């Protein structure tokens, strides 16, 4: 049997698309277009998730248990025609594991004098 931590490690290093989607959903459920808009806003337009890539990733992430689909719109005012996705426990764990991994890399980089912050 594998422990949950090992299960998280199975997914590392995480594809950039997946990381951005997990980040976008970390604050709460959202639909495809909202995820796309959130990612674009956070990265100031540097990362654009084109629709087919986005939905392909959402499907695969759901199949792998990182996301789950919510049957109904979570709140009034949401678009009822759209499917909403939210993080599962596994999804949140994978996100945290990936962020920790990145932190270690950043820390290692900082420790290098040439790259230290001014």
């Amino acid at each position: 049997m594998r422990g949950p931590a090992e299960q998280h490690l199975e997914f590392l290093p995480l594809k950039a698309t997946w990381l951005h989607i997990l980040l976008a959903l970390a604050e709460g459920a959202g639909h495809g277009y909202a995820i796309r808009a959130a990612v674009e806003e956070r990265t100031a337009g540097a990362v654009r998730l084109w629709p087919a890539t986005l939905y392909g990733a959402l499907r695969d992430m759901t199949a792998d248990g990182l996301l789950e689909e919510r049957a109904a719109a979570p709140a009034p005012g949401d678009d009822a025609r759209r499917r909403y996705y939210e993080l599962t426990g596994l999804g949140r764990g994978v996100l945290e594991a990936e962020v920790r991994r990145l932190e270690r890399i950043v820390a290692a980089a900082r420790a290098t004098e040439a790259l230290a912050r001014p």
Partner: protein
Amino acid sequence: MSGAALRGARRVYGLSVRLLPERFRSSFGAELEADFAELAAHSGERRGVAGVVGATLRAVLDVAWRALVERLQGNGDVMTGRWRSPRGRRARPGEVAMQWLGELRQAARTLAARPGFTLASVLTLGLGIGATVAIFAVVDAVLIRPLPYPESDRVVHIRHHAPGLNLSNLENSHGTMALYRDLARSFSAVALVEGNSYNLTGSEVPARVRALHVTPSWFDVLGTQPLLGRRFVEGEGVAGGARLAILMHGAWRTRFGGTADVVGRTIELDGQAVEIVGVMPEGFTYNSDDAELLLAAEIDRTQDFGTFGRQGIARLAPGVELAAAQAELARLQAVIPERDSDLSAEFLKNAGWSVTVERLRDVLVRDVRTALWIVLGTVAFVLLIACANVANLFLVRAEGRQRETAIRGALGASGPRVAWSFLSESVLLGLAGGAVGTAVATLGVRALVAAGPAELPRLEEVAVDARALLVALGLSLLAGILFGLLPLPRQLRTAAGALREARGDTGSRERHRMRHSLIAAQVALALVLLTGSGLMLRSFQRLRAVEPGVRTENVLALGVSYGAQGGPEAAARFYQQVLEQVRALPGVRSAAATNSLPLSPSGINGGSFSIESRPRDDDEIPPVTMYAAVSAGFFETLGVPLRSGRLLGPADDTPGANAVWVNEQFVRLNLPDGDPLRERIQLGGDEAPWREIAGVVGDVRTFGLAEEVSSMVYVPMSLTQSSIGIDLMQLVVHTSVPPSSVLPAVRATVGRIEGRVPLTTARTMEQVLAESIADASFIMAVLGIAAVVALLLGAIGLYGVIAYVVAQRTREIGVRLALGAPPAGVHRMVVRQGVTLAVIGSLIGLAAALPLTRLMRGVLFEIPPFDPVTYGVVVIVLLAVSALAAWLPARRAARVDVVVALSAE
């Protein structure tokens, strides 16, 4: 406007979404289109129509990529084991490689389990790839790669032509080169090159060495510097002599021990002191010339403008194109009459005078270009046939594995997964074939360079190098992928249809069609090769049937070089003395000397002459002839028949004599009416003496069997002027014993008379004859081997297919026999099937051979490319072999045991 753009964009995107597999579209199609509509509108607001177009393009690409990924992933619900990592993860370093290795290991195991199949495929491929790579290496080194000088494509070769004088290539004279040096602006440097041979003393052994007289500008034209010492500089050159020398690297090593102190030393060339000032770098050659020395020369304006035959090269000035240089030199021809009154404008016009500027490389490889491309095409054809054979083997194997594929499909292996397992096997086979091929190519190229066909320029540069290896790798992968893909469509369908049709009876028609096409293609390729080699064979027969005009059995030819010092009288006396003593040797019937050995185009002189009884105007073009210096006994020794007059006796070869001999061609061209024996001719300029024609002898193929008979004048060597050099002569010895057995005695005789005289090549006339047709022999050998291999592979392929078909149809044949069909009828039916394939292949092959063999026109001798005899024989041979290949399995079909056939399954 933007509304229309948006509607258009949505329609385009909607269409592109259809590329996606159904299951993806049904889940997400609506959302994709809705998202795209918002996205496009957003882009439109910000950047107008351009924004919409850009967004649409990106979004369509995104869909197309997704569609590809989705389809390749196959049925996403069923995944087989180790093939993939969790989808969200980037591949870890080495992971993909490990998966590949795993597949390859599996493939290697599968192949090792069938050593017969594997060995046959690898060897077939190896031979095909090896031959192709070897010839590629040659073609690459000789035809494709630039010459080994900086910016070598700017080095050009200048030549003059006078078709009206029957002189297609005059090269240059000192006069023309001075003209271009002074006036041509297209060149940054102009150099004159002249070859000559000298007796070298001052090194360990006296030797005859070849030297190139080059102007100091030669180093600027080629952009090359000596390795040791220095180059020649302006003003150091001497016209017609030698004062300073630079050694080629090879001569420095072999003759001077490769020591650096050689610079500054003095050597003797024909008794003249020459100082060594430098050594050229290793690997440097000029036009594949085997010269051992460079001598400083200069362009000499005092020399006769009309004496041509010197090589002229130049480097194009920066920014000047070849065509511009050509145009400038063409204009400069108008200046020639100002510089030499003999070459008047009228004369130049009558002569059809012209100049050409060509890249040096193109000039160098012109003679072998056709032959090399033919050979490369030939081996490529053999490779194709080999591939067709292996592909057929692969198809058979794939059929045998249909059950396995079906089971893997049923267990959920995706299309790509099945494809990959086939591909890894075929690619592995291809690579193994490539490895064998590389070994074959390396050995082949080594053998070729060692054999060293003299006609092949730049041979020293030929090697299986990185480029050739890359070609080998490319061919292996290409072949491997092809074999893997051929059976694939069928296999994938089997995987999709799972076990539904595991017996594999349906679809066999399609399979047969592919196998049959492969066989027809093989027959077609074999026909092209057989035709090519048949044409060469017929052409070679014609060539061998040509009367050389001289005796070739029991004749020894040996080069003896007295050298230029002492003058022609001393040289003639020396050769006469040698001949007298050689004639007295046991086993020698007769002996003579000539400066130009028949059948080999070396040492021959040519020029214009006058006939006393036919004076001509100044503007009339003089007739030209070739001439050779010969000793008494020359015609008897070489068996040249006397047609009229008398033979050349000892009294004619004395300085006071005045008789020359001509051949029948000379009479045909110049004295068609009247009695040649009453005529006097003048060789060379107006001051030359008038000589009487004392005899007419039979025609000799002076330049080689394949060359036209030229008009000849034979001048006794004692009468030669400076225009006919006799410093290097060929002794020809007619023997009553095997000719090579008298060689030691002849050598000893020459050494006794004059120890310092070097002897050069010794050959029998039969060897000389063989060398004169070496080109044709080489192409014929290559094409012949290729054709035999092609025929063999084609026959094996046909046999294999028919045998397989018979095995497949055992049941059907059994039924036919049981219903009373006569065995002979069954036999005929099977043979007919094979022959039908061969006929179809032959027709395709004929259609391909007709245009292809026309490319051979340049290498054929007296045989038209469309030679009905060759074509007829080839088709008959091919059909006969095909019938035989089909007949063997057909016999088995006719002997099918009805009971066994029907009770099986």
